C-alpha cells in the first residue's frame, strides 16, 4: 500500500462523497464530479477509486434499498470513515500551510 497519502483524483472523490452526504453512490459521485470539474469522468474510474479508498479504509460502504430503477439492483452507498475525514483534513491543512508560505510578492511578479 502506498501509505495514506491521497492522490489528486482520490481526494476529489473523497470530497464528493463527503459533500453528497447520504446520496453518495457511484453514479451520483460520477455526475457530481463531472459537473464540478468540467472533465468527463468515467464510471469505471470512479468505481476503481472508490474500491481503492475502501481498501485503504477511508470510506465504508453498505447496500441501500432496492428500487424499480436500475433493473432492481441495489445501490452501494459510501460514507467517510474517521480515517477518511482525517485524511481530508490533513490534506487541506497541508495545502493551507504551503499556501501561507508563499509571499505575496510572488503573485505580483506574475
Amino acid at each position, binding site marked *: 500500500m502506498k501509505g495514506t497519502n491521497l492522490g489528486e483524483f482520490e481526494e476529489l472523490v473523497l470530497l464528493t462523497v463527503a459533500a453528497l452526504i447520504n446520496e453518495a*453512490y*457511484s*453514479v451520483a459521485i460520477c455526475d457530481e464530479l463531472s459537473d464540478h470539474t468540467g472533465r468527463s469522468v*468515467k*464510471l*469505471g474510474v470512479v*468505481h*476503481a477509486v472508490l*474500491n*481503492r479508498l475502501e481498501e485503504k479504509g477511508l470510506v465504508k460502504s453498505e*447496500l441501500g434499498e432496492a428500487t424499480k*430503477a*436500475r*433493473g432492481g*439492483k*441495489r*445501490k*452501494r452507498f459510501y460514507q467517510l470513515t474517521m480515517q477518511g475525514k482525517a485524511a481530508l483534513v490533513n490534506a487541506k491543512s497541508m495545502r493551507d500551510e504551503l499556501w501561507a508560505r508563499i509571499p505575496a510578492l510572488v503573485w505580483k511578479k506574475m
Partner: protein
Amino acid sequence: MKEQREHHPPSWAQRFVEWYCKPGLVEDLTGDLHECFERNVQSMGPRRAKLIYIIDAFKFFRSYTVRSSLFVNLFTNRIMIGSYVKTSGRNIMRNKLFSFINILGLAISMSVGLLLIAFVLDLRSYDRFHKNGERIYRITNVLTSKSEDGGKFASTSIKTGRLIREKVTGIEEVAIMRNDFSGDAKVGDNILPIKGFWAEPSFFRIFTFPMVEGNAATALKDPYSVVLTETAARKLFGNQAAVGKTVKIDTLAYQVTGIMKDVPFFSHISFEALVSLSTAEQINKGDNHFAAWTNMWSNSVYILPSENADMAAIRSQLNALAREENLAEENTKIQLELLPLYNIVVGESLRQSEGGPGFTGPHVPRVVLWILGGLAFVVILSACFNYTNLSIARAMRRIKEIGLRKAIGAGKSQVRLQFLAEAVMISLAALLLSFLLFLVLRPVLINMAPEMQRTVKLNLTPAMVAAFIVFSVAVGIIAGFLPAIFFSKVSPMSAFGNVSSVKMFKHLTLRRSLVVIQYTVTLIFITTTAVGYVQYKNILAFDLGFKTANILNINMQDNKPDVLMKELSEMPEVTALSRSLITTGVGNAWGGNMKYKDSRDSVLVMTNHIDENYLPLHDYKLLAGGNFVARPVTAQAVGEVIVNQQVLKRFNIGGNNPEKAIGEQITLNGRKMTIVGVMQDFHYGKVENLIGPVAFTFWTPEDRAIISARIQSSDMPATVARIESIWKKIDRVHPFMAEFYDKAIEDAYSEFSTMIKIIGFLSFLAISIASMGLFGMVVFTTETRLKEIGIRKVMGASDGNLIYLLSRGFLLLLSVSALIALPVTYFFFKIVVLRNFPYHTPVQIPELFVGLLTVLLIAFIMIGSQTLKAARSNPVAVLKSE
C-alpha cells in the same frame, strides 16, 4: 420512460459481468451499468446505449472486480491442456482399433464436408471483385400474363432502363445490357466465333472490369464500336495493337475502341466482346417493338444506387413506374423488383425466355445448397455417432481412470475438457486424412457435370483452409460432446466400487437409438440410390413414341445442309437422312399459336419443321393421312401440317376421329394450313412434361437445320470421325456439333444422373461408416462378454446358440431401422419425387429391398465373424485369467 417499449441491456453482456465479477461487487456494479444504460437510452437511443453497455461491461473487467478463482481456473486449464493432449495421445495409441475406426470414419465423412465448404466458398466468391458490388442491383421482371406462363424473369425491357434513368431519383448509374450478341469476328484470314453483350458506357462505371487500352468512358458510346477482352484480341490480332482497327463481325464492320482484362472466372456474366448498345439501337431503328415495355426477353438492367440511398423509396418509385406502364397493356402486367448482385448466383431461380440463349450464367438455388448441406451433415453426424457410441461402450475401461482423476481433484469441467480435447485431436487427425481424400475427390466432383466445370474451381484459399480447421474442430466437439457429459458425471465412489454396476448400462437406450438412427439414414440413402437409379434407367428407356437408336443429329450452325446431305448420302454407313429445325424429346421447344374455327380460341402448340424423311426415319406412327405432299421451298408457301391426337382433342376436330380430321383447315401462326396427317401422341418435351398438342410443318431451306442421319456401322467412332472430316471441309470455323440421339436424351436428364451419383456416393460413405461403427460395437460387446460366453460354453451352449445370443440385439436394431427406412423412402418417392413425372413407372419391391439386403449382408458378415470368433474361443483360456 416516454416510449412504450422498454429497452433492456444485452443480456449476454450482463451475464458476462455476473460471471467474472466478485459476488460482493456484482449487484451494485450491474445496477450502475443499468442506470447508465437507461440514461443513455433517453439521450442517445437504444442502439448506442446497448453498445456503450457492452463496452463498459468489458471495461469493468479489472483486477479488483474479477473473481480470484477465475484466474486460477484459466491458469490450471492452460497447464492441463498439455496433459490432456498427452493422455489423449496415449489413449489413441493404446486403442488402435477404436482410433482407426473413428479417424477413418470421420475422415471419410469430413471429406464430404470439405468438398461442400469449398463449393460454397467458391459460390460465395462470385462477383466479389466489383468495387461497388454491395450496391449493385439487377432488375427482375415479374410477369403476369393472360397468354403465356408468368413468373420471375432475370431479363427486362430496354424501356425499363431508360425510364429508371429519366425518372427514378437516388440512382447513380443505370446500365442497360442486351444479351446474345454473337457472330464470327473476322480480321484478315483470322475467323473467331465471338460471344458477348451489347452494353452502354455506364457498364464500366457500375462494374469493375479494368481496361487495358482505350478509354472506358467513351469506348461503348458510338455505334459500331467493340471492346474486346485481352484473350479475344490476341486471338484475332495476334501481337499487333488492336485499338482503332476494324473487325468484321458477320456482315457489319466494327471499330475496336478498347481492350479490357479478361472477365474473371467468378463473374456471373462472361463475355469475349462488348458492342455499344447504340449499335443495336441503330440496327433496330424502325422497330417500335425493340424498346417496348413488354419486350423484356433479352435485356438486363443493372443499377447502382447512390451511397446511402433510400432503397425503400427507390422500390416504391419502381412500383409507380411499372403501374403507369401497365396501364397501357391489356394482357400483360409487369412488376419490377431489385435483385442484389451477390444474390444472383446463389439465390432464387429465375426464368429465362424459352428457346433464347442462356445468359444468366452459373446459378445454384439456395435449396440445393441446403439439401446438399443436409445430406453432408447427416453423413458427418453418422461418423460422430460412431465416436460417441464407441467411447461410451468403452466406458468400462476408462471409468477407473476418471475416478482416479476425480479423486485427486479434477472437476467436472476438467474431465469434460479432457474428453473434448481427445475428440478434437481425433478429428484433427481425421482432417489430415480427409484433406487427402478431398484432393482425390475434387477432380471427380468437378468433372461430374459440365455445369460444375463452369461454376466452380475448388482451389485452395487461406479462407478455405481456415474454414476446414474450424469445421474439423466443430466436428470433434460434436462427436465428443456426449462422451464428455457422460464421463464428467461419473462419481469416483462408483468408479472404485463395483465397476459393472456403473450406470453406463442406463445409456444402452441412447446407444441403441444412435445405432438405429445411423442405420435408418444409411438405408434411406442406399434405397434412394437404388430406386432413383431404376427410375432413371426407366426414363432413358422410356418409349417416347419414336425411335432414337443409332441416329446422329448434326447441328448445321447456319450452314446450308445441302452439301453435307449429299456427302452423307454417299456414305454406305448412312442408311437414312432427314432435316428438321430442332431436336425434340430433350427439352427443346418451338412454339406457335394455333386456331381452329373459333378465331378467339387460340392455343400454344409445340412445333417442329421437318422434311419428308423425318417421320419414317424416326418411325413416328401415323394414325391417318400420310406424309407431306407438297415440297415448298419458302416458309410462305408452307400449307400442310401434321398434328398429333392432342390437337384433335383440344379443338375437337372431326369429332376426335383422325380419319375425319384429314383435310380440315387450321390456322398456325396466322397462316391457313391443311391437316394432311395425324400422328399418335409422342413425347415432344421431356418425360416430366405432359403430352400437349404438337404440329409438324414442312422444313424449308429458310430454316436452320439439324440433319438426322441413321447410321449402321460396326465402328461408330470411326464413322463419326469421317463425318467430322467432311464437316471440316464445309465449315472451317465452327467445331463439329453432332450427338447421337440417345446420348442427347441422356444429357437432357443429366441432372438426375448427377443427383444419383451424389446420393450414391453418399450412401456408399454412409454404409461404410455405419458398418465400421457396428463392427466396433460388436468387437467391444463380445469382448466384454467373453467370460459369459466361456461359462455358457462350459454349460453346453453350442456355437449356433452363442451366435444367436450375441447377434440378436444387433439384428433387432437393424430390423427397426429397416421398418422405418423403407416406408419413408417409398413414400418419399411416391409423394414427393414421382409426382413430378406423370408417366413414371411405380416403385417396385426389388429395388426397395436390394439396399436392405446389401446392408444386412455386410452387417451379418461383421457380426457373424466376430461372434463366431468369440464363440469358438477356448473357455479355459478365458476363464482362468482373473
